[in-house]
C-alpha cells in the first residue's frame, strides 16, 4: 500500500503552487528602492592584450552613475578556486589569477572588461557602447592538444604553460597496469569526446548587491545553489568582508544544474559596487550573456583502454584524458576531471588494476566546471562505451560481459580509492531486462525495418558517488572547504516546526521531501513543518546543493537535529507525565508512558517548552530548538542499469528514441514521485547531451553555438515516455536515512545507452561503425554510415 504521508509517500510538491501560479520570488523579482543597473561590456575577442579603456565619453552620458574597469579592483582579491589538485609529481596545479574585470589581457569571448552602472539598464548599455576599448588581438588557443604543445601561445603569461596539472591516479599502480596490458588476451581501445555543454537553467543568473551605510552591512541576492559558500568565498577571499557583515540570499532559484554553484565575478561586482556607489546595483543576465559567462560543462577528450584475460574478465583499465578548464579556474573546476571522475573509473566492475591520467588544460574559452553529474558522466560514458565495444570485438553479449564482471560483494574497495558500501548490480540489471522487454525487440526491429528504418538497442550500467563528502577526506584531496551540512530545527510553542537547512532547493522539491522526513520522525502532519533555506541570515551554515548530496547529507543533518529535539521533548514529556524518561514513547505525535494509557500530546510538550511553568528547569533549558552538523563518513553509491531503443532513418541519419528504461538503486526513497521527476529531468539532459547539445568554438575562439538558434536543447518531442523504476533498494549503510541521492543519475546513466543503441542500429543496417561522438546528430550519423 503506498503511504499517503511521511517517508515513502508521493506527497505533492508544495512549492509548485507558488511556482506555477506566478508567486515565486526569484532574484530578478527583487528590486531595491533606488537601485542602479549594471551592464557588463564583454570581450568579443578570445585573446588579446588589453591596452586601455577610454571611459570619458561614456561617463558623460545620461544616467551613468559610475564606470568600473579592472583597475578599480587592484586592491581586491581575484576570484578564488575552491580545490587544489596535486599533480603526478607532487606539485600543486598551476593557478592563474582570475580578475573580477579583465586586467592586462582578455582571455575568452564574454570575459567582462568594464562595468557600467547607470540609472537604467538601457542607459548603462548605451554608455557601454561609448567605451573605447583598445585590444591588441593575440592568437587564440582553443584545441586542448594544441594548447599543451611546446611553444603554444599561453593563455596566462605569468604561469609556466597551459597545462594546469598532469594528474595520475593511482600513480603507484601505473606500472602494474601497464604490465597487465602486456599480458592481456585482448585489449579494446576507444578514443572519444565528451562534448562541451552549456547548462541553460531556465532562470538566467541574477545578482543584486545592497549596502546599508548606517550599519556597514552588505547583502547579496543571487541565483546560487549555495549562498553560505558564496558568503565565505566572496567575503573572505575576494572583498574582505567579514561574514557577520555580509548576508547572502538565494531565494527561489529556477534551476542550477551545477552552473549556479560557483562564485562569479558579477556577484562580487554587485556587492562591491553597491558600497562604492552607495546604491543597490542589479545585474540580470540575458540569455546571450549566459552562453558566454555561465561556466560550461564536460569537454573531455579521452583515450581509454581495457585489458581482458582469456576468459573475458576485466584485467586492467587505463585512461588518458584531456580536460578543458577554459581560460580560468572556476570555483570547483579542478576537482571535476580528477576526484569526481578518476575515482569512478571502476564503475560496476571488479577490474583489479586502474590507472587514470588527466591533463587539465587552459584554453581561450569560457571556464568549464561541474554540470549535472560532474565527472561521473564522463567516467560512465567512457567505461560503458568501452565495455560495449569490447563485447562486440569479442563477439559476446554486452549484458553478459557486464554481468560477468560485476562487483557482487560489498563493501568493495576499488583500486581507485573509494569503497562502495552497498549495491546489487545484478538486481538492477534483472529489473532492466524485464522493463526493456528484450524478448520483444526482434519484432519491434522488424516493424521498423518494414518502414525502411533501422532499430537499435543499447544498455549501460552506472555507479556514481554522491553525498559529497567526508570533510577530512576531501581536505586531503585538495578541497579548500568542508563538505558537511547543517540544520537547525526550531519548534514553535504551538507545535509547528521550522527547519533551516544548509541544502538549497532550486527545483528539487526539498520543501516537500524534507518536511516528510521530519513529520514522519515526530508523527505529525507534514504541513506542520516548514523548510527554510537559501539565506545566510536564517540558517546556521550550509555547503549547498550539488552532487546529489541534499537528502544524504543535508537530510542527515536534519535527522540529527530532529533526534535532539525528540530527546529533549521526551525529557519534558517525562516530567509532565511524571514517568521515567526511558519509559517515554513517541508515536503519532503523542508521548506516552510505555504500558500505560498516560500520554501527552506533541503540542502540550512544545507549549511547556516555551511556557515553562511546570517544567524541569533544573535539568534543561526552556525552548525547543536544536542544531546539528552532519559530516558523512563515506560517499553514497547509487547505481543502476539503463536501456535505450532507437529508430534510425538511414537516409537522413535522424535518430529517434523509441523506448528508454531506467532501473535505479537509490537506497531508501523519501518521495517516489519526486525521485521519478529527478530521473526524468536527468534523462532529458543525458539524452540532450547524447543527441542534441553541443557547445562549439571556432578556431578563433568565437562561440558558434551561442544561442538557441544553434545550441539544440532537448524538447518534449525529442524524448520518449520513460519507463523508470527504483524498486531495487540497497540502503546506504552509513547515513541515518539509508538514502543515496538521485539528482544526477539520469544525466550520468543515459548517454552511453543512447550511443550504444545508435551503433547497434547501424550494425543492423550492415554498417559496422565502431564509435560515433556525441551529439549523435543526423549529419554525423549520415557521415558515419556513408564515410
Amino acid at each position, binding site marked *: 500500500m503506498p503511504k499517503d504521508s511521511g517517508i515513502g509517500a508521493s506527497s505533492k510538491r508544495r512549492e509548485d503552487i507558488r511556482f506555477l501560479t506566478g508567486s515565486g520570488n526569484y532574484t530578478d523579482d527583487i528590486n531595491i528602492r533606488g537601485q542602479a543597473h549594471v551592464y557588463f561590456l564583454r570581450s568579443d575577442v578570445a585573446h588579446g592584450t588589453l591596452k586601455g579603456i577610454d571611459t570619458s565619453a561614456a561617463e558623460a552620458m545620461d544616467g551613468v552613475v559610475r564606470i568600473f574597469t579592472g583597475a578599480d579592483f587592484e586592491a581586491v582579491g581575484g576570484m578564488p578556486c575552491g580545490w587544489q589538485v596535486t599533480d603526478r609529481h607532487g606539485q600543486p596545479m598551476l593557478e592563474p589569477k582570475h580578475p573580477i574585470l579583465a586586467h592586462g589581457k582578455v582571455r575568452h569571448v564574454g570575459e567582462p572588461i568594464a562595468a557600467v552602472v547607470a540609472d537604467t539598464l*538601457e542607459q548603462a*548599455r548605451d554608455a557601454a*557602447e561609448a567605451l573605447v576599448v583598445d585590444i591588441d588581438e593575440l592568437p587564440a588557443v582553443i584545441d586542448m592538444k594544441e594548447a599543451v604543445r611546446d611553444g603554444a601561445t599561453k593563455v596566462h603569461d605569468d604561469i609556466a604553460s597551459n597545462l594546469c596539472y598532469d594528474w595520475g591516479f593511482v600513480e603507484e599502480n601505473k606500472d602494474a597496469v601497464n604490465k597487465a596490458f602486456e599480458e592481456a588476451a585482448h585489449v579494446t581501445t576507444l578514443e572519444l569526446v565528451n562534448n562541451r555543454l552549456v547548462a541553460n537553467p531556465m532562470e538566467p543568473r541574477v545578482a543584486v548587491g545592497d549596502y546599508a551605510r548606517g550599519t556597514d552591512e552588505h547583502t547579496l541576492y543571487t541565483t546560487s545553489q549555495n549562498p553560505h559558500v558564496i558568503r565565505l568565498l566572496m567575503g573572505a577571499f575576494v572583498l574582505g568582508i567579514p561574514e557577520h557583515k555580509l548576508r547572502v540570499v538565494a531565494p527561489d532559484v529556477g534551476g542550477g544544474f551545477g552552473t549556479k554553484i560557483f562564485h562569479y565575478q558579477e556577484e562580487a561586482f554587485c556587492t562591491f559596487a553597491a558600497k562604492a556607489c552607495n546604491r543597490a546595483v542589479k545585474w540580470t543576465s540575458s540569455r*546571450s550573456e549566459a552562453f558566454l559567462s555561465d561556466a560550461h560543462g564536460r569537454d573531455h577528450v579521452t583515450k581509454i583502454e581495457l585489458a581482458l584475460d582469456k576468459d573475458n574478465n576485466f584485467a586492467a583499465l587505463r585512461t588518458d584524458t584531456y580536460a578543458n578548464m577554459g581560460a580560468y579556474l572556476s570555483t570547483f573546476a579542478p576537482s571535476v576531471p580528477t576526484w569526481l571522475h578518476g575515482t569512478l573509473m571502476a564503475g560496476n566492475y571488479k577490474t583489479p588494476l586502474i590507472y587514470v591520467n588527466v591533463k587539465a588544460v587552459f584554453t581561450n574559452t569560457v571556464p568549464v566546471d561541474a554540470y549535472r553529474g560532474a565527472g561521473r558522466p564522463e567516467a560512465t560514458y567512457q567505461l560503458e562505451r568501452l565495455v560495449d565495444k569490447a563485447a562486440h570485438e569479442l563477439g559476446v553479449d554486452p549484458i553478459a560481459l557486464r554481468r560477468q564482471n560485476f562487483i557482487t560483494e560489498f563493501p568493495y574497495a576499488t583500486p581507485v580509492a573509494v569503497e562502495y558500501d552497498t549495491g546489487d548490480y545484478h538486481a538492477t540489471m534483472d529489473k532492466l531486462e524485464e522493463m526493456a522487454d528484450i524478448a520483444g525487440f526482434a519484432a519491434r526491429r522488424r516493424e521498423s525495418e518494414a518502414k525502411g528504418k533501422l532499430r537499435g538497442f543499447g544498455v549501460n550500467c552506472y555507479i556514481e558517488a554522491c553525498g559529497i563528502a567526508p570533510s577530512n577526506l576531501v581536505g586531503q584531496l585538495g578541497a579548500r572547504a568542508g563538505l558537511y551540512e547543517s540544520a537547525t530545527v526550531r519548534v514553535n510553542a504551538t507545535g509547528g516546526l521550522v527547519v533551516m537547512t544548509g541544502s538549497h532547493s532550486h527545483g528539487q522539491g526539498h520543501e516537500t521531501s524534507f518536511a516528510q522526513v521530519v513529520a514522519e520522525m515526530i508523527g505529525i502532519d507534514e504541513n506542520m513543518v516548514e523548510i527554510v533555506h537559501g539565506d545566510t541570515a536564517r540558517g546556521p551554515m550550509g555547503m549547498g546543493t550539488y552532487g546529489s548530496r541534499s537528502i544524504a547529507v543535508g537530510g542527515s543533518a536534519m535527522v540529527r537535529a530532529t533526534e535532539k529535539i525528540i530527546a529533549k521533548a521526551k525529557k519534558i514529556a517525562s516530567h509532565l507525565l511524571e514517568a521515567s524518561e526511558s519509559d517515554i514513547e513517541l508515536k503519532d505525535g503523542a508521548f506516552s508512558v510505555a504500558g500505560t494509557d498516560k500520554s501527552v500530546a506533541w503540542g502540550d510538550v512544545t507549549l511547556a517548552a516555551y511556557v515553562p511553568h511546570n517544567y524541569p528547569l533544573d535539568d534543561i533549558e526552556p525552548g525547543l530548538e536544536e542544531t546539528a552538523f552532519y559530516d558523512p563518513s563515506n560517499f553514497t553509491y547509487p547505481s543502476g542499469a539503463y536501456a535505450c531503443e532507437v529508430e534510425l532513418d538511414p*537516409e*537522413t*541519419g*535522424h535518430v529517434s528514441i523509441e523506448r528508454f528504461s531506467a532501473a535505479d538503486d537509490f537506497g531508501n526513497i523519501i518521495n517516489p514521485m519526486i525521485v521519478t521527476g529527478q530521473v526524468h529531468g536527468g534523462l532529458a539532459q543525458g539524452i540532450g547531451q547524447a*543527441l*542534441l547539445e*553541443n557547445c*562549439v568554438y571556432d578556431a578563433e575562439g568565437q562561440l*558558434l*553555438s551561442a544561442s*538557441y*538558434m*544553434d*545550441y*539544440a*536543447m532537448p524538447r518534449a518531442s525529442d524524448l520518449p515516455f520513460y519507463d523508470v523504476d527504483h524498486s531495487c533498494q540497497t540502503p546506504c549503510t552509513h547515513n541515518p536515512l539509508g538514502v543515496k541521492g538521485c539528482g544526477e543519475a539520469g544525466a550520468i546513466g543515459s548517454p552511453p545507452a543512447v550511443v550504444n543503441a545508435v551503433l547497434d542500429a547501424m550494425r543492423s543496417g550492415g554498417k559496422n561503425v565502431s564509435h560515433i561522438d556525441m551529439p549523435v*546528430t*543526423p*549529419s554525423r550519423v*549520415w*557521415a558515419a554510415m*556513408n564515410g
Partner: protein
Amino acid sequence: MYNFEIEKPATIADAVKALGRDEAQPLSGGQTLIPTLKARLAAPSVLVSLHGIDEMKGVCLDDDGRLCIGGATIHSVVAKEAQAHYPALAGLAARIGDPAVRNRGTIGGSVANNDPSACYPAAVLASGATVVTNKREIAADDYFQGMFATALEEGEIVTEVKFPIPQSAHYEKHIQPASRFPLVAAFVAKYADGVRVAITGASEDGVFRWTEAEEMLSNSFAADGLKGLTVDGSGMISDLHGSGEYRAHLVGVMTRRAVAAMGG
C-alpha cells in the same frame, strides 16, 4: 534595443507614406525584427507596423482561382484558411516555429526577409506565385535574389502573395535540431503544365529551383526516377549542423519523399 518611433497606419497608402521617413522600416510580426532590435543589430528610427492594415490580411481566391494571402496574414491563419484550397501550403504554415511564432509571424515578413532557411520562400517559388507589392507584381522567379536578398526596393512592401493552386503538392522538411528551421526542405508542386521543385535551407544562394528534378518529374512523376539525380554540394551551406555534402544529399531525399507523399 535602441529607441525608435512607431507608426501604426491603417492603410497601405499611409504605410507607404510613413516608410518615406528617414530610416523607417516595416514591422510585421516582429519574429525576426524584434530579436534583431533587442540584440542592437539594427537601429531604425521609425518602425511602421503593418499589423493594423486590414487590407493586408486574410486568405481568399481570386477570379483566376489563385489563392491570395495578404502580406500581414499570420501563419496560424494560413494554416487554417488555406487548408481547403492548398493543403500543402497550409501544412507548411502549420509547422513553422511554435504557436507563439505562428500567431505573430506573417507571410509578408517571411517573404521580405528571405532567410535562406525559411519555409515560405520554397512554397512561393515552387508554386510560381506572384509577390504583390504596393507598386507592382513580381513573379517568384524574379523575386528571390539570394540569401536575404529580394527584388524589393527601399520602402516597398509585400502586400499580398498570389498562389496558383497546383493539382497536388507536398512540403517535406528536415529540421535543423536547434532552430528547427529547415536544414533542407523541398516543396514539390505539380501543375498541368509541369512540376516545380523548390529547395530551401540548402544553398548559399538561398531558395532555388531544382530544375533537373523538375524536368524528370514533369516527364515521369516518380520518386524512383530521381534516385540517380544528385545536386552538387559545393554551393551548399556548410556549418556545425551539416556539411554541404550532407545538405546536397538531403535535397535528393526530401524531394523524393515529397514526390512519394504525392503518390509518385
